[in-house]
């Protein structure tokens, strides 16, 4: 991370690219000189190129996964049987998604026969809704258990600091349980107040601080990006 290290020629070239593009996009929204080149239009066009360039990397992730798991299977590593399942799921889903999902390549059935699409649609729907959506939701729902155990462990009045965390957390939890409001309506009001004032103040402090850190960090990266340092 030290900046005294010499850049190689290749790195220097890349740095010039990073700097010029970064500088351009940092200021383009501030300058609008009437009558000259429309910088806004240039920046939009450039953005379209960059987006197109990034979309070209669409298969990187799949290549990585395939490499790792085919390797697992070849060397019969401990979890190789699961790797076989992963690879099958990956390519089956890719094929059916290209035929029948909202991202289908040929939704109008111009090249792919309509019968193939009709055959694939229920299979894709099964893979997507019955399997993928369910795993996704259930992994999400694990958080309910984790948040409970985290609360149990972390909300302890060890010091003044942890007591504040505990108090704010518990008051908010109480304020949003419908039953607590029935016991004493004040809980809801306290929760709303905590969220509206102390919470907003703390969030702003964190956000303003972070914004400045990000700003300085990004400007420095314009001058030197540490490739593999």
């Amino acid at each position, binding site marked *: 991370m030290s900046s005294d290290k010499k850049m190689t020629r290749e790195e220097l070239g890349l740095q010039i*690219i990073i700097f010029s593009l970064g500088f351009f996009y940092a200021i383009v929204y501030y300058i609008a000189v009437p009558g000259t080149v429309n910088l806004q239009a240039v920046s939009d066009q450039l953005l379209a190129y960059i987006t197109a360039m990034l979309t070209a990397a*669409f298969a990187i992730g799949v290549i990585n996964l395939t490499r790792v798991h085919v390797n697992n299977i070849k060397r019969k590593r401990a*979890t190789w049987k699961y790797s076989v399942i992963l690879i099958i799921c990956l390519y089956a889903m890719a094929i059916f998604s290209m035929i029948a999902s909202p*991202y289908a390549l040929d939704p109008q059935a111009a090249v792919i026969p309509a019968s193939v699409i009709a055959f694939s649609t229920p299979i894709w729907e099964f893979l997507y809704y019955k399997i993928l959506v369910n795993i996704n939701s*259930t992994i999400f729902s694990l958080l309910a258990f984790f948040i409970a155990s985290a609360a149990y462990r972390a909300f302890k009045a060890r010091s003044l600091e942890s007591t504040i965390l505990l108090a704010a957390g518990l008051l908010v939890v109480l304020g949003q349980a419908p039953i607590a409001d029935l016991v004493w309506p004040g809980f809801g009001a306290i929760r709303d107040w905590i969220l509206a004032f102390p919470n907003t103040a703390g969030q702003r402090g964190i*956000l303003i601080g972070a914004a400045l850190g990000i700003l300085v960090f990004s400007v420095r*990266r314009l001058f030197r990006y540490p490739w593999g340092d």
Partner: protein
Amino acid sequence: MNPIDLIGVWVGVFITLMVLSFLYKENPFFRLAEYSFIGLAAGYALAASLRLFINQALNPIFVDGNLTFIVPVILGSLFYAQFTKKYSSLYRLPLSLALGYSLGVTIWSIFATFFVKQVTATMIPLFTGNALTTFDNVILVAGTILSLSYFILHREQKGVWGGFTKIGKYFILATLGAVFGSTVLGRMAIIIQRVQFLVGDPAFPWRALGMGTATEGAYAPIGVVAFLAVFGYYMYRERKKGSSAETASKATKP
């Protein structure tokens, strides 16, 4: 009743319980769900990003006839250079372009949206004539300033200054406690709906999640019982294996 939806419900129940079994311990059922999920997600993402590539890069060339888009496509293909041995660092070229762009936009937007907006939003009257709102506003302004002061690094947090930063830290902790507390609500909503699914409750949005209708859903508990039987058998075998391994190791000991 639709038999495919019925099978779908049972498959969904099995999968749900396979994932939940992780809470007990890491086991082959969870691993199966984990690996198939990663596979399915990657396959779906491949189709989605291929579609995006066609829309953003190929359509401009082949449909609109804008040949300049060939340049970004060639640059983008350099990302794949990393998989070769000889030219692996070529991928840095397109990446530099993307990095330059994103750093520039960050520099521009972070200042406007985070710094200026948050600072101006905190410029509120410190005295309003109403005791309650005056108190609220003072808390907001003082809290923002104090929690910001906690992040100032060029001064050791001692003495009066240390007192300020300490109160700032308290504000930050109160914020984190509040966010923690309010997140509990959402997480509970999600597990409640999972449970509604497992017991086949008609209140579960069967239609919205593509799980057929409540008619098929009502049979979900059968899936739960079936899974518990399978999982129980697995645990029984594990225990037996464990105990036999134990006796074996005892036997070898002199």
